[in-house]
């Protein structure tokens, strides 16, 4: 039985909802997104994720006319039994105030109809901001969003602030993967069992970290860190690196099977793992034997196939 | 010293040895003694020599010195191939023969090999297999 997760993707028209969805789920590359027209009404996309989970993506058109009737006539149809709301803000939008008000009404509608839905806000198109001003701008926007979501949530009393997390994102770098990985992380069933199994597996291999990626999107769904690493953004960077390479393989008419990169200080193995995942193993030794690692990966595959199917 | 005869004496001196044959470095048979249970057909012998010849270049690439002896123990028989001067002495024995003595036999074969060198040196040029097949992508020779 495949479990269905309803995911609402909302935000002002032109804020980049459809582009990001196409990149994450439909193997688009950033450059092709300029050709995507505005979304009419609601575009539904059923995305198979982790094999038997289906994300039912509601990409809601952002033009005012559509927003109006989402909040009026189609209110319960849109906001009923929603698991996740992803609200996208265009950082460069001229009428940020208005966007926030729309966001507030959507949030109110959501909390009435799906009280325990999880809410993520993306401050998108950050690449249009000068590098050195990006953090400052993001902090300012994030504060506004949190303020408005409090306005929406407090009257209903249960959740002082509905927003789980705010992210800055751009389709031109790895921040998109960070945002979507965090979103998806909440949807993955039994992720904790997976993570401590990964830790045990990492121990046998004497690895510094073991990361599990969803096969199609290459979003990080579970990871075990056995020794600290200074770059907190490395997971989404790896997602972005491998996803780009996967796409160039597709362009070449072939599919990626495994990658092995090493120098004197480390060896990284990226291998197809279970039916729906890739695994990455990082060992802090440039001379580690590849056949040994591949053999242990094959051995572990059975264990993780079992976890994945046990819904 | 009659080579044929001393080979036979040597063969009988060790338990389990059923045949010894001598070839040049290209596998051409020079002489053999004993009634090999399985060696009567030349196909087996040819295959054995061929396999051995293919191992020589690989062995030289190991860079652990020239080939002296290859010993192979199968379920039903044992083979020792000694390189001496320009010859390969192939000792074929049953499973009951003592591996150690088959290897130690090399010292005893030296005299025979020297005798043969004086009597009928092999005609296949210097008969030395190229130490190793020009290893792939060796820098083209016009480098100093």
């Amino acid at each position, binding site marked *: 039985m495949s479990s269905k997760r309803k995911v609402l993707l909302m935000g002002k028209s032109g804020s980049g909802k459809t582009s990001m969805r196409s990149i994450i789920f439909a193997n688009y590359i950033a450059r092709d997104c300029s050709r995507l027209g505005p979304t009419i009404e609601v575009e539904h996309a059923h995305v198979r994720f982790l094999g038997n989970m289906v994300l039912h993506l509601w990409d809601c058109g952002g033009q005012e006319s559509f927003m109006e009737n989402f909040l009026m006539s189609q209110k319960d149809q849109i906001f009923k039994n929603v698991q996740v709301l992803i609200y996208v803000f265009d950082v460069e939008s001229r009428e940020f105030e208005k966007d926030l008000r729309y966001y507030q009404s959507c949030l109110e509608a959501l909390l009435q109809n799906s009280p325990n839905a999880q809410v993520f806000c993306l401050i998108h198109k950050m690449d249009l901001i000068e590098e050195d001003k990006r953090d400052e701008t993001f902090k300012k926007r994030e504060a506004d969003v949190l303020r408005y979501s409090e306005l929406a949530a407090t009257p209903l009393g249960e959740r002082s602030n509905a927003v789980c997390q705010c992210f800055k994102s751009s389709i031109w770098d790895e921040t998109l993967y960070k945002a979507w990985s965090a979103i998806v992380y909440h949807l993955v069933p039994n992720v904790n069992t997976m993570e401590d199994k990964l830790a045990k597996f990492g121990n046998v291999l004497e690895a510094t970290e073991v990361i599990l990626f969803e096969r199609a999107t290459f979003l990080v769904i579970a990871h075990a860190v056995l020794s600290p690493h200074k770059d907190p953004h490395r997971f989404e960077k790896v997602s972005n690196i491998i996803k780009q390479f996967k796409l160039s393989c597709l362009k070449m008419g072939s599919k990626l099977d495994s990658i092995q990169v090493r120098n004197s200080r480390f060896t990284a193995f990226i291998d197809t793992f279970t039916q729906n995942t890739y695994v990455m193993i990082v060992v802090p030794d440039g001379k580690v034997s590849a056949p040994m690692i591949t053999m242990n990966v094959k051995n572990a595959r059975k264990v993780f196939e079992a976890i994945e199917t046990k819904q | 010293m009659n080579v044929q005869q001393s080979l036979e004496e040597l063969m009988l001196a060790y338990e389990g040895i059923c045949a010894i044959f001598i070839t040049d470095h290209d596998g051409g048979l020079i002489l053999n003694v004993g009634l090999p249970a399985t060696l009567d057909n030349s196909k087996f012998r040819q295959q054995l020599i061929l396999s051995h010849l293919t191992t020589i270049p690989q062995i030289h690439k190991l860079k652990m010195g*020239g080939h002296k002896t290859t010993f192979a123990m199968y379920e039903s028989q044992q083979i020792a191939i000694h390189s001496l001067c320009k010859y390969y002495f192939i000792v074929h024995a049953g499973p009951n023969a003592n591996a*150690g003595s088959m290897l130690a036999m090399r010292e005893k074969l030296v005299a025979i090999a020297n005798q043969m060198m004086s009597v009928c040196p092999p005609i296949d040029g210097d008969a030395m297999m190229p130490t190793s097949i020009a290893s792939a992508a060796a820098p083209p020779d016009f480098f100093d």
Partner: protein
Amino acid sequence: MLKQKALIDVLGQVNTSGVDGSWLFNKDGLLLAYVGSEQKEVASNVSAALLASVWTALERRACDLRESILVLEDSTIAFTLVARTMLLAVKAHKNADLGMVRAKLHSLSTYLEQPILSISHDLI
């Protein structure tokens, strides 16, 4: 699962009195582990591939090859099958006592038989 460090410790134990290197590799020459003196000219994964091709050449004659010994000018190599699919080889000085070298080879291969067998269906 086979822990690389555990395998390396085990292989390392034979490297005493005359024996100075041991490999574990499959018949295609894919090296699982090498412990011993670093050969300057020929890397251990290259020597593993060479030894594998010598074994497969000798095996072609009759595939019930059990063990083989290469006596070379500078050193001697003894190698044998482990769990039908892997090859174990040990290298010794040219004047090391051959009986002792073979004894070490046999004890190491019997020791490794079980662990390798248990994961052999995953072997590459």
